[in-house]
């Protein structure tokens, strides 16, 4: 088959045995010895026995697929080398997500090689074969068929899988499919049902919004579809550079990534969430001249801030957006009402093509647990969910499971839930499996295997098919559903095969769906409805008893981290060591307390606190978080896994057990536990490092650009290219996807919590975060910082052995194998971006993260050497990518077009904040940006003349977002 992207079609994965796979990568193991390990006396080269057309050893091939990292289901490209997926990148074809990804998405490729994955089916704790386990399960299912069979799953975005499940409901009369999201949106779905008559999560359009008001919704970090929203948000900010201003007000208790990006961040304890929404509605309604009764002015909320927000919203009515992270239907009803009054429904709140990324139904899950306890459930299949870890009443759930005759888990490992199941039928990793997804109605994407299954696993869908008594082969099933449902909805291709091949090649297929919501009129929404009133009175009742709280109690605010999300990525070393975008803390969660509360409790960062609510207790180190609401403590969920694997088990403590609690009490334990933070100083000390520009300044002298500093030395003649980079601080949100992307691309080691505490993390790119202002008005600035590739590099001058010198095309090169490790360069680097190999990280049991286990080593990029002990390393501007593109251009005898070369960080950036290019080409994007008014280089007064520059963040008010003032933080 000459069609490279469909080379699996002729060989469905079932045929491909493990050994076959090994033959396929055989050559590579030798080659990756070149890339990774040290050089043996005799090296063998094992060629393919029968080389597949599409694989040439040493040449990367790309496959379009869909991310299974979370329910956002971003469209991806997987880069495979010699049959091994080694890198994840966003699929630029996707209208929703573009080329960007999130950190977790980048890291999914490592979880493919996770040695703790289940190696095969398990029956009652014993490894077994698929045949055997089918024999066990199938009869039991048929037996249970007359009674109740339940599939408890996380949100399933795959239409084909949903279709398959529908078949089950027809096959088993008493079958029910219950969707459980650890972080649930069922409040929003319910509210939408109440207001619009359809239970759905709207598709939000931040790119249409000139004013955004967020109520504790971390939509840039973790909420619903962060990659998509970041792309929209940054895009909107970019457009606003030469248009009117955009405003973002954010009300929250802890400091979230989104809050740290807001123009105005207002403190709002969780208990005031509803009241705030209500007050906002009241203000908006007043401006709209909508008469509403019964909405009393609430004193517990910051009415001035709300008024300011309301003004902005009203000014931009029709092009503004209010989102809330609350799971209370009543609150979401009010939020809908606000958007309704503002006329945002239809523009920024899209219900024609709703989001399908969160479909959890809390009520159904609660009912299920009752049923199980009553013994009404006879078979429970758990797929893509881990309730025993993250259900609010986990212990009760476990007890309930005992009264279920057959419990089956499809988890990829024996996790907390699987451990309590009779059968574990491990699913493929998404990179090994066929699949499709419909994250937003009408936007489809496909997933294809990029590697033969590493272990004896089976796709869930195949298991479901088999147990239905059908032949396995989900691949065929997907084709059928697509032939049935997707093919008719397009006119471009005549034959289905053509349509299929192109869809598979592009990975995405987009079409406007038939409206799912019944016709509704925004006008009607603009008037008070019963739904409003009910919600309003509900909220008022709620906030009244929220008010009474004893002085020793603190409100609890649970949140997801950008790295671990709900905890499913806990065993991924890259994500465990990813500094939290806000706190910069790695390897574990903590109790974020305000300075005021810390003073009251007499604790400092690192003092271990006992957090208790009733009989539930966890002990976690405190972290004094600037900008934390004074009476609220924030704790990240997703930690404290008990059966994640050797990396993730026992890191941090599980805060989900407090999910039911509204308040907790804190007590000092007297113990200390140093936080593994990568940044310990938070003030920019008034130094002009992260620069901002007001919109007026930008307009006034748009042309004016400072002349470059004079230099004593004659200029050296350069080469054919002059590589440079521009980082747009106006777009960057600090989401840190670039950090993980770089780690994946450049084989950057993971060093573990202790070494991070010693200040020895190895990331080549970091995101500096500075605080300013006060707790009440926290200002935050972020700055991605990697090697600045100075033309006059201080590091180069001081190296005695010429291990770091300048290339003819502007790159500051680090030659690892020449380095003797004096660390003089590191000392003399003003940006401190160089990283030293303090130990032998590769092949060292003490650092058994990504470079030691032979399985995990398969993720290594063969084009980048793994560094040895005692040498310095740093950002190389992804020179291997530059080489590849240059060579390709040369081989195909075409000029190297601008934008063809993307560094890993720039490629992964959902905000498109990092631009790489050739300064010798005056029309290149980077050359234009460097010529612009916003461009500056960090510490330019030192005369280092960096090739990496920054574009100033544009603000409306100098006082906002510019932490240049000395602060106590």
């Amino acid at each position: 088959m000459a069609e490279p992207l469909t080379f699996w079609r002729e060989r469905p994965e079932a045929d491909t045995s493990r050994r076959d796979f090994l033959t396929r990568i055989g050559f590579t193991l030798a080659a990756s010895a070149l890339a990774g390990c040290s050089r043996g006396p005799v090296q063998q080269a094992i060629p393919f026995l029968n080389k597949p057309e599409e694989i040439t050893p040493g040449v990367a091939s790309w496959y379009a697929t869909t991310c299974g990292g979370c329910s956002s289901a971003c469209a991806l490209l997987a880069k495979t080398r010699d049959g091994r997926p080694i890198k994840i990148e966003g699929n630029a074809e996707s209208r929703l997500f573009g080329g960007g990804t999130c950190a977790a998405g980048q890291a999914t490729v490592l979880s493919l090689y996770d040695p703790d994955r289940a190696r095969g089916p398990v029956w009652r704790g014993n490894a077994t074969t698929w045949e055997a386990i089918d024999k066990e399960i199938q009869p039991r299912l048929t037996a249970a068929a007359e009674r109740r069979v339940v599939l408890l799953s996380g949100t399933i975005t795959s239409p084909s899988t949903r279709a398959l499940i529908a078949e089950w409901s027809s096959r088993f009369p008493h079958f029910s499919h219950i969707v459980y999201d650890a972080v649930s949106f069922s409040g929003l779905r319910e509210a939408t049902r109440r207001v619009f008559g359809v239970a759905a999560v709207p598709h939000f359009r931040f790119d249409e919004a000139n004013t955004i008001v967020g109520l504790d919704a971390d939509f840039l970090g973790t909420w619903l579809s962060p990659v998509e929203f970041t792309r929209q948000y940054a895009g909107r900010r970019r457009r606003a550079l030469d248009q009117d201003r955009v405003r973002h007000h954010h009300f929250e208790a802890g400091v979230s990534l989104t809050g740290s990006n807001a123009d105005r961040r207002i403190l709002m304890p969780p208990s005031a969430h509803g009241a705030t929404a209500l007050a906002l509605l009241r203000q908006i309604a007043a401006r709209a001249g909508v008469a509403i009764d019964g909405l009393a002015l609430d004193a517990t909320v910051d009415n001035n801030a709300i008024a300011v927000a309301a003004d902005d919203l009203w000014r931009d009515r029709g092009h503004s957006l209010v989102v809330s992270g609350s799971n209370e239907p009543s609150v979401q009803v009010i939020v809908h009402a606000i958007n309704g009054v503002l006329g945002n429904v239809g523009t920024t709140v899209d219900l024609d093509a709703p989001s399908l990324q969160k479909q959890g139904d809390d009520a159904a899950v609660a009912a299920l647990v009752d049923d199980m306890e009553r013994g009404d459930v006879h078979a429970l299949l758990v797929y893509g969910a881990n309730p025993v870890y993250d259900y609010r009443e986990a212990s009760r759930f476990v007890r309930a499971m005992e009264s279920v005759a057959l419990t089956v888990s499809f988890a990829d490992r024996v996790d907390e839930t699987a451990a309590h199941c009779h059968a574990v039928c491990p699913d493929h990793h998404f990179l090994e499996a066929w699949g499709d997804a419909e994250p937003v109605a009408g936007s489809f994407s496909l997933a294809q295997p990029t590697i033969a299954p590493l272990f004896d696993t089976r796709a869930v869908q195949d298991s479901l098919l088999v147990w239905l008594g059908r032949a396995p082969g989900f691949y065929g099933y997907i084709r059928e559903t697509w032939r049935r449902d997707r093919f008719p909805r397009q006119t471009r291709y005549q034959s289905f095969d053509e349509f299929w091949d192109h869809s598979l090649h592009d990975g995405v297929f987009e079409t406007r769906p038939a409206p799912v919501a019944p016709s509704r009129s925004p006008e009607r929404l603009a008037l008070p409805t019963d739904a409003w009133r009910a919600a309003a009175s509900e909220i008022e009742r709620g906030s009244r008893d929220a008010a009474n709280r004893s002085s020793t109690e603190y409100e609890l605010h649970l949140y997801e981290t950008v790295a671990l999300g709900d905890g499913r990525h806990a065993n991924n070393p890259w994500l465990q060591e990813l500094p939290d975008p806000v706190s910069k803390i790695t390897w574990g969660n903590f109790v974020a307390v305000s300075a005021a509360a810390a003073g009251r409790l007499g604790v400092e960062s690192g003092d271990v606190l006992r957090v208790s609510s009733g009989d539930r207790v966890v002990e976690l180190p405190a972290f004094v978080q600037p900008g934390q609401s004074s009476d609220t403590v924030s704790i990240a969920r997703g930690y404290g896994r008990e059966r994640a694997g050797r990396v993730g088990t026992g890191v941090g403590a599980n805060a989900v057990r407090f999910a039911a609690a509204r308040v907790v009490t804190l007590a000092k334990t007297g113990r200390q536990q140093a936080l593994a933070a990568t940044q310990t100083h938070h003030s920019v000390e008034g130094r002009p490092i992260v620069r901002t520009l007001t919109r007026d300044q930008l307009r006034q002298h748009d042309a004016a650009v400072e002349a470059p500093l004079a230099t004593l030395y004659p200029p050296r003649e350069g080469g054919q290219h002059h590589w440079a980079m521009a980082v747009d601080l106006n777009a960057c949100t600090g989401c840190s996807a670039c950090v993980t992307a770089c780690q994946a691309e450049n084989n950057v080691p993971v060093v573990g919590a202790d070494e991070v505490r010693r200040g020895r993390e190895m990331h080549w790119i970091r995101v500096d975060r500075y605080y300013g202002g006060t707790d009440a008005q926290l200002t935050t600035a972020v700055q991605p910082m990697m090697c600045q590739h100075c033309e006059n590099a201080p590091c180069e001058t001081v190296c005695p052995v010429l291990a770091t010198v300048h290339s003819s095309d502007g790159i500051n090169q680090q030659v690892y194998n020449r380095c003797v490790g004096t660390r003089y360069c590191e000392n003399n680097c003003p940006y401190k971006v160089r990283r030293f190999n303090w130990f032998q990280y590769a092949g060292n049991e003490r650092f058994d993260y990504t470079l030691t286990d032979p399985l995990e080593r398969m993720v290594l990029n063969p084009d980048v050497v793994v560094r040895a002990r005692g040498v310095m390393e740093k950002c190389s501007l992804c020179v291997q990518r530059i080489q590849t593109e240059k060579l390709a251009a040369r081989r195909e005898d075409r000029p190297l077009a601008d934008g063809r070369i993307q560094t890993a960080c720039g490629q992964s950036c959902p905000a498109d904040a990092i631009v790489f290019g050739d300064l010798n080409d005056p029309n290149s994007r980077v050359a234009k940006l460097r010529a612009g008014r916003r461009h500056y280089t960090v510490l330019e007064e030192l005369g280092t003349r960096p090739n990496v520059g920054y574009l100033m963040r544009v603000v409306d008010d100098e006082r906002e977002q510019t932490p240049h003032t000395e602060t106590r933080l």
Partner: protein
Amino acid sequence: MRRDVVVGRFHQEPMVIDAVHAVRSCGLRIADVYSPYPIHRLDEAMAIARSRLPLVALAGGVGGLIAALALELYTSVIDWPLNVGGKPDASLLAFIPIAFELTILGAGLATAAGLLIRSRLAPFGAAPVVDRSATDDTFAVVVHCRDSAIDRRLVEQLLLNYGAMSVESRGLPR
């Protein structure tokens, strides 16, 4: 053996000087004087020519300097110029320290070598002369008396008069 020198042993520096003056004013030749420490005025007393070691040192220094500059310029300008921190290939200012050090090194080694070679100092070198105490507390004045016309007893008497502890006629050392 032929007894062609007269050795006078002294215990005090001044007497040696006088003795040497006296002996030479008699027209006799001083073979050499052995002392435990340098006696400055002995140089003119014995009319020892000034050493030319300074020239050797100069040569060594110049050699070191040239070698250093040659090495630095050849390696970083001619053989393989590299862009180091945007500095010029011939960063002469930066080359000064090493050039200086090698100058000193060359001069120092040349001086030492010159001394050893000129004075024939080397391992397995010749054993000392007159007696062991010449390196301890004795000054030995050795007078040439090969000419049979010279009356050794007079010479010995002369030395004794000038304060020699003991005198002896014996063969030339070496």
